[in-house]
């Protein structure tokens, strides 16, 4: 039986999913069959290049992760809250480290979600010294494969304009059928009040 797939977005009135969106949601084959097709750099090659692949936070040094965040211009996070977030990234978590320095992440990505239908990928970072060699793609492909193995195919993320072209070849589409990513912003309410 196919895994149930549906792009759910907040809707008030009843809408039938438009035909154009159906192709995003109707699987033609079971997810596991396709998952194996989508890893461009296999584990063995990463290993040969001196990288370890990690799927849990066990060896992850949170302040090293903060360093990577800072180096790409993300805000640093409070360590306690970061640990809290990492323990609740129940969707998926993948990070790469140098085998010679196993607690320091060089590439990282995590996904949150409800574990069955939806997932959102956050904090995709690659240490600037290791960018441009396919590590970002490697972690993203593994996060996607991990989520799909759990049966989750509604995978979303928020992409800054210059990285949209990074996510496209991974299979992401911006605003499919006009679905918009929206974020709560208090200042919008401030503007309205005036």
């Amino acid at each position, binding site marked *: 039986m196919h895994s149930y797939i549906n792009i759910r977005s907040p809707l*008030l009135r009843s809408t039938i999913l438009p035909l154009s969106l159906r192709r995003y949601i109707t699987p033609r084959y079971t997810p596991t069959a396709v998952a194996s097709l989508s890893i461009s750099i296999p584990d063995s090659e990463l290993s040969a290049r001196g990288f370890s692949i990690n799927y849990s936070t066990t060896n992850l040094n949170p302040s090293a992760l903060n360093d990577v965040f800072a180096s790409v211009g993300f805000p*640093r996070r409070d360590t306690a809250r970061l640990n809290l977030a990492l323990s609740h990234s129940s969707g998926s978590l993948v990070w790469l480290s140098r085998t010679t320095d196993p607690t320091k992440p060089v590439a990282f990505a995590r996904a*949150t*979600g409800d*574990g069955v239908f939806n997932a959102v990928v956050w904090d995709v970072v*690659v240490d600037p010294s290791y960018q441009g060699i396919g590590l970002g793609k490697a972690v993203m492909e593994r996060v996607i494969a991990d989520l799909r193995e759990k049966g989750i*195919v509604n995978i979303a993320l928020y992409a800054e304009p210059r990285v949209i072209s990074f996510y496209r070849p991974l299979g992401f*589409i911006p605003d499919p059928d006009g679905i918009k990513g929206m974020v709560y912003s*208090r200042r*919008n309410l401030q503007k309205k009040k005036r």
Partner: protein
Amino acid sequence: MCSLAAPRVCFRCHPCLSSSRFEVRNNKLLPPGVYLRLKRKPEKRLERWFLKAGFWDSIASSILKNNNATETMVPPSTLHEEEEGEEPIPDQLLLADRSLSDGTQEQIIFSLTGDVDVHALQDLCDKVGWPRRPLSKVAVSLKNSFLVATLYSITKSPEGDEERKQLIGMARATSDQAFNATIWDVIVDPSYQGQGLGKALVQKLTRALLQRDIGNISLFADSKVVDFYKNLGFEADPEGIKGMFWHLPF
């Protein structure tokens, strides 16, 4: 280091994204050449900080609180000054109490306790035309959601002997419980739409998330309801940041 010319996965290295006002106090923390145009005047009011904050600053609750030469600063609380004295959203809230034309008394209750009967939810989804989902998966998805907000209608017959409780709305949010939350599946019974209940549902859920110190609240809205969420304080494509969805290969 992070030049635009190179095809790199590098977020937030470009000047135009830093519309915030914080000062880089210790350049040793950053590789040379990575610019961060950040200036903060400590005496600026918290309120004004919020007014000028950009997208990433809205998730500032996650940032270091002790100021030891960090790149970005965080306000003491994610709640706006006016909101700080606000009562926390209770588990149950009475939204409306009215008499219907046939004499029955109806109460609309907003609830955060999250106990949802999946069969009632399926009936609700049928009413708005959403495809059915395996009930066991629905149950798991609700259990794994950080917050589940529901609207119930409780009707009492005029004699006062019969009481009927009906699920008329729901919204849920998944979260990492520290930084980000995403709202999914906002649904209101068609016969109760148009009364501001959906608005109340989302507003209360948003407020509850903010009170739990989740700084970044996001959602994905169908094109028809983008304006509905705009009116509730949500911004589409903030700073050009786009929502993207993964799709199966064709």
